[in-house]
Structures are given as structure tokens and as C-alpha cells.
């Protein structure tokens, strides 16, 4: 009687479900979109090959310029506000007594997610809404560009500082004690202690937090879609919103796919450059 081999015979069958799901629903659509970006396609008749014409059109499209600018505001703004303030709150609170209680106000907004967050802020920011009434001004916060993007960035900040704080606190609490104590004995304190001892020690964690925020902010969609749908006109669109509107509102499937490809290339390139800088 022959025994079954130790490791079994059916091994490929066990990875098959994972591979098939990923191949059929993630890889195949990815390749198909790359192909569609080189076609003219309305979703009904079959795609017509036009080569790189969509990309040539992208370069001269004023709407794309606007959404690129807005996306850059989102990226830069995310680094300064949610990430920067998260770091500030973490550094101020991580080693004082009752620090966790000081962080509660920042954690509360994290309960709301993308669409829910935008939904509850809409009556605050809308013209004639709560913010207008309480501040006694008549500014339409979501009308003018780029002020509307900045207003949404503040909403985003309100929600995101908590989670960044949490990540930074975990990092700060896990840095080794000895170098910090040694620097203290040498008389370092306050800003100098932070700048020259603590900051370098927490760099690996900062790299992760900034990297995640970078990729997420390049793909900003939910909050903009719910609060302004990229408007008024097209002045608050981000690249992800432009992709969605070109495709599913204007039925320009080929052109929308080209925007998706561009977004992917930009995200990939930014991640690559960022990672290379971090690893070096």
C-alpha cells in the first residue's frame, strides 16, 4: 500500500480559489482598462483602437489640469494637516499622565467614515448652513476653487488626526528608552531632545504613516464625491473623481480609462520615489 506523499498531492488546488478570484476580478480588469485607455469606447459598441490619442487629449484638457491641481492640494494638505497635527498631538500627549484622555476628542470623529463624514458636514458647510450662521458670514464654502478643496481638507483633517495620532503614539511608546535617557542626562530637553533624539528614532514609523497618507490622498474620492460631486462645474474634482465622471457620467469609457491609467502611474511613481528615498 502506498501512502500519500507527506505534503499532499492537491496543493495547486488549494491556491486555486485565491489565484482565480484575484486573476478574474483584479488582474483581468486591470489589463482590460489599460487596453481601453487606447481606444474610443462608449460602453455599448465595441472599442475602437485610437492609440495614444486619449493621452494626447489629457495633456491639453483644462479639466484635467484643475483636477491635478486639486489632487496636489490634497496630497500636500494631508501631509501638513492630518499627518502634521497627528504628530503634534502624539508628541504632546504620549508621555504625560492621562495622555489617553487628552486624545479622546481626536478619536471621536474617526467613528464617521467617508460618505457618513461628508453627509454630516454638508449642512454645516452648505450656503446658509450652520457655519454661515454661527460665524456670521455669508461665504459659500463649497463654491469657489480652490477654497472648496481647502474646506473639504479641513473636514478630512478633523476626521483623520485621531488615527494618525494613534499610530504615532504607538511608535513613540516603542522607541528604546536608553538613548532618550542618555540625552536627558546630557542636558537635552524640549525641542532639541525631540529633534535630535526622538525624531530620528521614530523615523521608520513616520515613513509608514506618511507613505499610507501619500497613497490614500492621491486617490481622494469619497469625500469630494459626496460633498460637491467635483463641482460646482468641475472646479473641485480630483483625479479619481474626474475618472469616475468621464466614464460613468459622460460615457467616455476610453478617456476615463486613460485617466485611471494616469492615476495609477502617478500613484506608482510617487510610491516608488518615496520608497527609494526611505530605503536609502
Amino acid at each position, binding site marked *: 500500500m502506498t501512502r500519500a506523499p507527506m505534503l499532499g498531492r492537491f496543493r495547486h488546488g488549494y491556491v486555486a480559489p485565491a489565484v482565480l*478570484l484575484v486573476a478574474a476580478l*483584479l488582474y483581468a480588469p486591470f489589463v482590460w482598462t489599460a487596453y481601453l485607455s487606447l481606444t474610443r469606447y462608449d460602453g455599448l459598441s465595441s472599442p475602437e483602437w485610437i492609440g495614444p490619442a486619449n493621452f494626447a487629449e489629457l495633456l491639453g484638457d483644462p479639466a484635467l489640469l484643475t483636477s491635478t491641481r486639486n489632487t496636489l492640494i490634497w496630497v500636500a494638505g494631508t501631509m501638513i494637516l492630518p499627518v502634521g497635527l497627528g504628530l503634534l498631538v502624539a508628541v504632546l500627549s504620549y508621555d504625560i499622565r492621562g495622555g489617553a484622555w487628552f486624545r479622546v476628542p481626536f478619536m471621536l470623529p474617526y467613528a464617521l467614515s467617508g*460618505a457618513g463624514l461628508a453627509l454630516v458636514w454638508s449642512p454645516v458647510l452648505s450656503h446658509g448652513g450652520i457655519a454661515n450662521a454661527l460665524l456670521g458670514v455669508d461665504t459659500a464654502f463649497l463654491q469657489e476653487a480652490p477654497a472648496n478643496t481647502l474646506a473639504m481638507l479641513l473636514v478630512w483633517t478633523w476626521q483623520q488626526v485621531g488615527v494618525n495620532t494613534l499610530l504615532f503614539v504607538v511608535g513613540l511608546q516603542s522607541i528604546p528608552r536608553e538613548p532618550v535617557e542618555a540625552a536627558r542626562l546630557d542636558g537635552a530637553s524640549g525641542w532639541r531632545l525631540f529633534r535630535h533624539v526622538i525624531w530620528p528614532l521614530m523615523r521608520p514609523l513616520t515613513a509608514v504613516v506618511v507613505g499610507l497618507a501619500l497613497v490614500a490622498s492621491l*486617490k481622494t474620492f469619497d469625500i469630494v464625491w459626496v460633498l460637491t460631486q467635483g463641482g460646482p462645474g468641475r472646479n473641485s474634482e480630483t483625479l479619481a473623481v474626474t475618472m*469616475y465622471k468621464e466614464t460613468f457620467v459622460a460615457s467616455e469609457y476610453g478617456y476615463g480609462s486613460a485617466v*485611471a491609467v494616469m492615476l495609477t502611474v502617478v500613484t506608482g511613481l510617487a510610491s516608488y520615489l518615496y520608497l527609494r528615498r526611505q530605503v536609502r
Partner: protein
Amino acid sequence: MIRRTVLVVLGLVWLGPAYLLIVNASRPATSYDPGRAWAPPGELALFANFATALESADLGASLAGTLLYSVVSPLLGVVVGALAGYTIVVLRLRHGFRWFLLIFGGTVFPSQMLLVPLFVGYSDAGLYDTRAGMILIYTAVNVPLAAFVLRNFYSGMAFSIFEAARMDGASTFRIFWRVYLPISTSALMAVFILEFTFVWNDLIFGLTLTQTAAVRPVMTALAGLMTDVYAGTPVPVGLAAGLVCSLPTVVLFLATQRLFARGLSLGSV
């Protein structure tokens, strides 16, 4: 002292909007006035407001569908991903690392790269606007993370566990199901929670692949409610809907916080 002062001031700035939202979501729909948004509500109407939202926007059907997606898809995703991780690490699949990279590579694509083919393909296959279609895409999106965490988890386990079970005559699948899956509960839970949250909060797949209230996920339905906030749905009703629909992920996270931290740290070995 300066540190505490800065923290308290910033904290108050953060609490302001939170207070406004809660107070105005709890106010009876008829007594809302932007100019008196600070005033405490006379009577608590949070759940009455939410009930109105359930009725007028058919949120109940959306919530039921979303609960189904955010439980079933992560469960399937976690088991499929764990099985792949087990096969690659414990069963030492040939070219295992390449298979792993193939599966994990699925996380790299922005969802915008998937939408058009999914929309067209789903329409052709009769999956557009069906619950089965939604479960399928959410499962696929969840597989790579599960495979990643569980592969790491299993590579930290002693091979002798497997050998002993094998000597006793158990099949490889039975060993996975009865030994490896139960041992990795904490890692599985951590991945499940992350994926539950992802599915519950999804907007874009719901926007692209669904149409009717019964299939439409809740965040997509909320986004649709939005235009109504301007067009006559009372503000307290919209606020209550936004708050209450966000609760499940918070409750799940708070209830499992410790398990969550432990699961992820085990997974990162």
C-alpha cells in the same frame, strides 16, 4: 503645562463640531435652525430621525445588504486567503513565493483601474445590481490581505505540528481546517475586522455596480441621500442617518480592540 494647554485647546476645537453634529442629529426634525445650532435639543429625537431616514430612503434594505456583504465577503476572503497562505508556507508549494506575490499583487491596483471592466463584465454576466456580484468583488478585494497576514502567521509556526497530524493520518485539508485555522483565530479576526470596515465603508464599488436599494451598499445609499438634504430631507434626519450608519464599525472596533492589536502583532512576526 504648555503641552496640556495646547492639547486642551486643540481638543475643544475638535469637540465643537462633534457636539454640533450630535446635538442636531438628536433634535426633532421640525425644530432645526442653523442659527441656533448650538442650543441643546429640547427632546431626544435621534432614533425617530433615524427611523424617518430608514423609511424615506429605504435604508433598511441597504443596511441588510451591507451587513450581508461585510460579514460574508470577509469570511470567504479570510478562509480563501488563509488556505493559500497555508499551502504556500506549510505545504511548501513549488514556486510558493511567486504564487504569493501574484496574489498579494492584487492590492496594488487602484479601484479606478477596475471599474469599467467590472461594470461592463458584470452587465454581460448578469451580475450587475445583484448581491452575489457584490459579494464576489468584495471577496476578491479581501483575499490579498488575508493571504499576506496568514502567510506570515503560519511561517512562524513549527512544522512538527503538521508532521504529527500527518502521521496520525489526517488529510492536508483536514489539518488546515481542524488545526491551522483554529490556531490562527486572532490573526483571522484582525483581518476580518479590517475587511469588515473596508466593505462597510465602501462607496465606489456600490456606486458603479448597483442600482436598486436592496442591493446598494449603505454608504452609497447615504451618498444618494445627500442631494435630498439640500432638496428637502430635514437636516437632523440626514445627520442621524450618517451617525447611526457609522456605528457598526465603531462598535466592532471597540469590542475587539485588544484582540485586534494582538492579532496584527502576531501576523507581523
